[in-house]
């Protein structure tokens, strides 16, 4: 740790307040910070917010809706970044109860993005007196925002000396502001990095103080470019200090009820995690081999779903790399403990070459994105890119998926060495991928172009290099402007919808239906798929309203789960959530209520997208690569499967057809299926055939506010 640096911190604005303690999960106030005019104020949490929007993502959407207008773009001053955990956030007894949701208008999609993240910021924000933080406006110089709960003071401060890259800024600020060990433990920093200044795929890092390592760790709000918005507003960091966290800091209505289910889940994880997913030892990296085994692991820009070299980067490898035996939860009491780290990692390239750092992760998505999807089956460059993505404030998923697209373009001749400024971006060229990332960090060269995201790269390659727009559309794995997360969906129509029929773009946190659909064949009809594409997005939305992580819901299951009526829903765990929500808020709910609580928020978000000029049927289109084989080699690599489908489903005889004819027939069928899926899902969700929520749906859900109805009426 470095010496404490005494640096002048000039206060531009100061606001004093009497922190309101959390009562039944709510402080009743949100904090509004405007960086354009340096104003800070408190806003009340209204009954509508509490009842209809619950917290977390719901609060983010509500506050953002009232902060922007129909034409607001991501870099307009009125765009906001809203951070909120939710009423159950900060619970220490139940694994995965410390998440924050970040909401903003995305520079990638031009619609609302919501990104969930671990780390301590959201819960500590609440314990500092605030249910949400709303940052609006743009500073005219780099600033930090400091929320000092124990001191009852919020400041906006000039920050010329504060570094930008996350692994530096977090440490720097905590050392500046902490007087003693306990202060470090109850502080959290949100930061981005230099890459987020140049790329649209910027992420936010949320710190947590790891008391056993005596060091800061970071979790990422990766998706949708919120880090880019953060740096565009010229924020270097937001710091929160809270009073010491205790087992009842949320002041829940019924602490014992929460303790009982919390202790039960701890025991379940203790007893079964080693036999099930080994999350405590390898985190989400356990998924790498499973995805490969089922032909679902993205390889070479989602062309394939498996590769012989996968064992070189699978969970066995990461279990060896990760430091074992430490309580790696990203919030207190998470015994699922998936937030692993490689301690003592020595950086081998770039500006921090030679530094020894704690490498947070990598997690499954990162391993697949910057690893297999780019043809890189070597843990070393995966770790290097993980470190630099985080510290530069770059989303590993968008970086990996975007780089895989670049690599396919390179191999297809769309790009060459001249166009990339000398980078030989073949699949598997880790050095070139790392240099691309450094260019993003510096805002230079081809890295700057790639940092604009896949959607804009497609436009650029067509305009500047005369590339075939249809080919790029087929292979560029983005929808709504957001890069796909890391699952091959070609054989699961339901998951094509799970990605395509989302509000924010193709991120698996809305629905992950591949096993139900493709492996277990539990969703044979369009109605079944539509029901799943209603239930699961709503159910998963609920986590983000309350401050929960999805992983303890189904990455460990009770031993008798398979004997239940609906094993995919993990009924016992859903009941746990009922107990905790009721126990924290005192608002008695049932299992069915969880989905009913999410529906207004989910529909509100769809209307929000429509208000911003997107969010209708054609915006739910997906690239063909996510539905079927685009290239001949792709088809032929799984010819037996595809030929069989032509025969069995379409009644065609593949023997008499060329590969081109077979691909065309398959494509026509699959694209028709996707359109039929849209019809079924929109109907189930109470939307028009153009994906617009009907007024009667808004009424039923109690969100028929005049300004909301006015948006949908334009399209009815």
């Amino acid at each position, binding site marked *: 740790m470095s010496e404490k640096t005494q640096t002048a911190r000039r206060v531009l604005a100061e606001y004093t307040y009497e922190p309101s303690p959390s009562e039944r999960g709510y402080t009743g106030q949100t904090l509004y910070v405007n960086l354009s005019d340096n104003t800070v104020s408190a806003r009340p949490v209204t009954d509508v917010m509490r009842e209809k929007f619950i917290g977390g993502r719901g609060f983010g959407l509500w506050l953002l809706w009232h902060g922007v207008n129909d034409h607001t773009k991501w870099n307009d001053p009125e765009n906001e970044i809203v951070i909120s955990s939710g009423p159950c956030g900060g619970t*220490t*007894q139940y694994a995965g109860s410390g998440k924050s949701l970040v909401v903003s208008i995305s520079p990638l999609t031009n619609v609302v993005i919501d990104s969930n993240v671990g780390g301590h910021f959201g819960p500590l924000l609440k314990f500092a007196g605030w249910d949400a933080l709303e940052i609006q406006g743009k500073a005219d110089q780099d600033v930090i925002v400091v929320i000092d709960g124990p001191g009852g003071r919020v400041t906006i401060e000039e920050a010329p000396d504060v570094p930008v890259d996350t692994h530096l800024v977090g440490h720097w600020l905590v050392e500046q502001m902490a007087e003693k060990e306990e202060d470090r*433990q109850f502080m959290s920093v949100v930061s981005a990095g230099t890459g987020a200044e140049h790329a649209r795929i910027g992420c936010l890092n949320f710190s947590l103080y790891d*008391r*056993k390592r005596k060091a800061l760790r970071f979790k990422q709000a990766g998706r949708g470019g919120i880090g880019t918005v953060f740096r565009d507003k010229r924020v270097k960091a937001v710091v929160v200090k809270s009073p010491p*966290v*205790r*087992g*009842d800091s949320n002041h829940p209505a019924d*602490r*014992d009820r929460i*303790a009982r289910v*919390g*202790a*039960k*889940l*701890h*025991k*379940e*994880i*203790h007893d079964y995690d080693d036999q099930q997913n080994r999350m405590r030892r390898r985190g989400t990296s356990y998924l790498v081999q499973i995805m490969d085994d089922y032909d679902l692991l993205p390889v070479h820009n989602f062309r394939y779903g498996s590769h012989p070299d996968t064992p070189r980067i699978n969970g066995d490898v990461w279990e060896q790399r990760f430091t074992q*035996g*430490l*309580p790696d*939860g990203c919030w*207190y*009491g998470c*015994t699922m403990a998936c937030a692993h780290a490689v301690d003592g990692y020595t950086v081998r390239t770039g500006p921090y070459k030679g530094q020894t750092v704690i490498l947070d992760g990598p997690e499954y998505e990162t391993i697949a994105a910057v690893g297999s999807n780019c043809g890189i089956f070597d843990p070393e460059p995966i770790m290097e890119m993980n470190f630099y993505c985080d510290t530069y404030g770059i989303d590993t998923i968008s970086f990996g998926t975007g780089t895989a697209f670049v690599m396919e373009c390179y191999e297809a001749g769309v790009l060459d060495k001249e166009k990339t400024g000398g980078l030989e971006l073949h699949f598997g060229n880790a050095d070139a991928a790392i240099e691309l990332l450094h260019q993003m960090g510096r805002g230079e060269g081809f890295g700057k172009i790639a940092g604009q995201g896949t959607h804009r790269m497609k436009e650029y390659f067509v305009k500047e290099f005369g590339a075939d727009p249809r080919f790029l559309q087929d292979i560029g794995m983005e929808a709504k402007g957001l890069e796909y997360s890391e699952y091959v969906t070609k054989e699961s129509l339901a998951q094509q919808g799970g990605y395509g029929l989302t509000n924010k773009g193709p991120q698996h946190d809305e629905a992950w239906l591949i096993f139900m659909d493709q492996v277990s064949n539990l969703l044979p009809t369009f109605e079944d798929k539509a029901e799943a594409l209603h239930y699961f997005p709503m159910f998963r939305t609920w986590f983000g309203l309350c401050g929960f992580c999805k992983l303890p819901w189904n990455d460990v299951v009770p031993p008798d789960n398979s004997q239940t009526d609906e094993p995919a829903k993990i009924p016992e765990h859903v009941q746990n959530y009922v107990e905790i929500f009721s126990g924290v808020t005192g608002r008695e709910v049932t299992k069915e209520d969880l989905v009913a609580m999410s529906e207004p928020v989910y529909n509100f978000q769809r209307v929000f997208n429509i208000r911003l000029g997107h969010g209708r049927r054609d915006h739910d289109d997906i690239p063909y690569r996510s539905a079927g084989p685009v290239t001949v080699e792709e088809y032929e690599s799984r010819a037996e499967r595809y030929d069989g489908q032509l025969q069995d489903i379409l009644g065609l005889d593949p023997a008499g057809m060329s590969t081109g004819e077979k691909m065309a027939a398959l494509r026509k069928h699959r694209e028709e299926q996707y359109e039929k899926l849209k019809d079924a899902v929109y109907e189930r969700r109470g939307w028009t055939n153009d994906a617009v929520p009907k007024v009667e749906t808004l009424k039923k859900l109690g969100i028929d506010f005049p300004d909301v109805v006015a948006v949908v009426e334009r399209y009815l």
Partner: protein
Amino acid sequence: MKVLSYDPELCVGCYICEETCSNTWFKVTDAEKSNIRIHEDEDGGLSAVFCNQCGACIQVCPTEALYQDRKGIVRVRKKLCVGCLSCVGFCPYLAMFYHRDQTEPFKCIACGKCVEECPADALAIADVESPAQ
């Protein structure tokens, strides 16, 4: 090191140890606030649950609230405890307890009060080389 030991053959199931323990540490007679719990199985056999100071809980504690003192006894530093109850779920012997009246868990520290009060000499403070694993 000194730990509590129990002999089921001698135990008469009077539960005086539970009463003594809760009175010693919580100033109430309440088995749910005892650091030792006597269980009777279906066949009438008796068993006791209490901490053997193995220290498995120390590893899962995220805040260093659990530690082994100079004598090897596992203790709870209440000031550092965030009440997460990870230790409760991860105790291999189910010997870390919690109660609605406080956020911090509690456990046997081999104080020996129950040994003094046990009428059947079923409890003793034993000197062992190392805690059970």
